[in-house]
């Protein structure tokens, strides 16, 4: 497909395309893009500090707001004191639920420090298959296919999240090695485990931190950042709201408060 090949940094037909736009805008050449994206506000470090070091009552208020908003979306939020309580709660949840497709109880979980601490391997009943998405530095197609097969067989996917936006009950998940995006998507039930300090106020705070916090800048948005606000839903038949269109039918978030 030679005709579509890139030449240097220019995409096919980019030059003519951009020239047409410049002509339409009545410009002769493009200006410096950097100035369009804004510079850090002078007090951005104070602002970041305020965001990162919220007071305990503020955190509690945000948790309450998250629970309230999640309720409107049929998303269950359960505060737990510590990781082992979360582990027990998940174990119990798995005992009480049945797979949507087939009979084998398979669970897939992110390779993530918080999820390791749940100790699920030890506590789950032996009829439950648990696969953790730990991977080699450059997983080959065989390794990826294995994970994909487990993923499709699993009825519960367990992830953590980067942030949780209280005001709209939105989990923000970035893609990392060992943390595939489909774990929050393909299984029938999405279980997420987060800590209370990951709960933030609103999108304004989210974008501010992603943009100006040097720690966040290192990772960036990654090649896939997903916002999830509740289980999958549709209203396409006579506007009747139904949960479970193509993504998870049910969503549960455990918030570690201790």
């Amino acid at each position, binding site marked *: 497909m030679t005709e579509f090949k890139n030449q240097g940094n220019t995409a*096919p037909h980019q030059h003519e395309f951009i020239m047409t736009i410049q002509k339409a*805008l009545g410009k002769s050449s493009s200006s410096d893009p950097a100035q369009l994206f804004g510079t850090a506000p002078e007090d951005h470090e104070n602002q970041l500090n305020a965001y990162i070091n919220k007071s305990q009552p503020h955190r509690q208020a945000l948790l309450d707001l998250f629970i309230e908003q999640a309720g409107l979306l049929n998303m269950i939020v359960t505060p737990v004191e510590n990781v082992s309580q979360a582990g027990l709660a998940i174990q119990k949840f798995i005992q009480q639920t049945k797979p949507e497709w087939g009979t084998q109880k398979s669970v897939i979980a992110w390779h993530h420090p918080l999820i390791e601490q749940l100790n699920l391997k030890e506590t789950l009943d032996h009829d439950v298959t648990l696969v953790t998405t730990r991977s080699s530095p450059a997983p080959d197609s065989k390794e990826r296919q294995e994970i994909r097969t487990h993923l499709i067989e699993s009825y519960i996917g367990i992830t953590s999240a980067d942030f949780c936006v209280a005001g709209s009950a939105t989990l923000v998940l970035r893609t990392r090695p060992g943390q595939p995006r489909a774990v929050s998507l393909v299984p029938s039930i999405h279980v997420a485990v987060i800590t209370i300090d990951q709960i933030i106020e609103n999108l304004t705070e989210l974008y501010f931190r*992603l943009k100006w916090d040097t720690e966040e800048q290192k990772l960036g948005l990654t090649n896939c950042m997903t916002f999830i606000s509740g289980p999958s839903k549709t209203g396409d038949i006579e506007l009747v709201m139904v949960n479970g269109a193509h993504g998870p039918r049910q969503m549960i978030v455990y918030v570690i408060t201790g």
Partner: protein
Amino acid sequence: MSDIKTEFYKQNAAKAIKDPVLQHALFDVQNRLGPATALAYKNLPEGLGLRLKAHEIRQFAINHLDILLETLALKIQDRGGKVYFAKDAAAATAYCLKVAQVNQVKMVVKGKSMVTEEIGLNKILEANQIEVNETDLGEYIIQLAGETPSHIIAPAIHKTRKEVAQLFTQKLGIPYCEDPPVLTQAARKALRKKFLAADMGLSGCNLACAETGHITTVSNEGNIRMSTTMPKIHMAFMGMERVVARLEDHDALFRLLSRGAAAQNMAGYVSYIGGPRTEDQLDGPDQFHLVILDNGRSRILADPEFREVLLCIRCAACLNVCPAYGKIGGHAYGYPYSGPIGAVITPLFVGINRAKDLCCGEPLCGACKMACPVDIDLPRMLLALRAKLADGDPQWGVTRASRSEKFMFQIWSVIIQNRTLYDLALKAGSIIQRIIPKKNDMIPCMPFVFKGWTKSRDIKPLARASFLTRWKNREQKP
């Protein structure tokens, strides 16, 4: 190119008005979404003013479109994505087909995308033996039924649960059931197989971010995430105007988009996609392609009178409040874009003369402007289109729609500027109207050239005496 049926606006509108099922569905969608969206705007912490801010953000992006697209393309290429700039529908569909053929794609899954409707992508892929599966439930229903979308975000709103039940019984072989959860589950099961087997996923793009180099996709069902995660190739299509400069611009815009589209605080899923799977990742597509489409947009951009329409983020809020859409539905507009937004952009895309009925059919009531999350002045542009039809416009290749109408208005403008002539005309009118038959004190049918006025409405006869005459008489009385 999508099939253009704008010439049949009047016939299709008349048909829609006579369809009681459609009337009920349209009433329902407007009655539920229209007021809910208005309330959702009101409840914003920033209030309605956020719409004005969003307007500025979009205006800024459109004014710097050249730089923003170059930045976006560069960043996506840096992550290993491929960007293709398509000047028209033919170039975009040819690129998609080429990539599909080179990679031996047999089956694609599609997330809802208006721009792929605009370029008529499905037909071209299908003609080349590639199976296309629409995966948004509404789009899936109309694909099974062999129809076209009638609403930008609720494409199957014209179908009742009975019709969907019959369709699914026939096409999916499930027992007849009218329960929406059961029907949804049947589609979930059927499409899950497709998601897992497809070689390529297609999506649109709601609003790209130039600064970070990501497109975004928004859905409630999760079908777009499935389409862009499971197959080994993801190709996204975006109209060239669908980009903003800064990450924080999405703050106002996503909140407004979710409210405008479905009165939600936040859509169920929003994904930022900036490139293919990296070597260390376990999933995601191996190839990511972004097709940026002009297809008539640069012509709109070049005209300051219509540039504002490129601010649109396709939420369909204007459809949910429009009295014309509420009666005639989406199909009458004869093109994928319907409602007030369709009445402005369709003529600009397919030809103002060809789609003249669309802009003449809207009532200019202003409801669409009030409902628009980015405060686009659609009524102003509807009037501008009508002005072009009245006088012709060489720049847009518009010929005068009606010579006789122009002539009538020229006469009228003489009469109305001359009191004596005007009084004379009134007098003549009141004499003539005595012999015109009336029904309930209204004139159901005007004679001669005035016939058109009463084609779909009755008009009131002229008053016996004009207001000024009555006023004078009143003052003279003791």
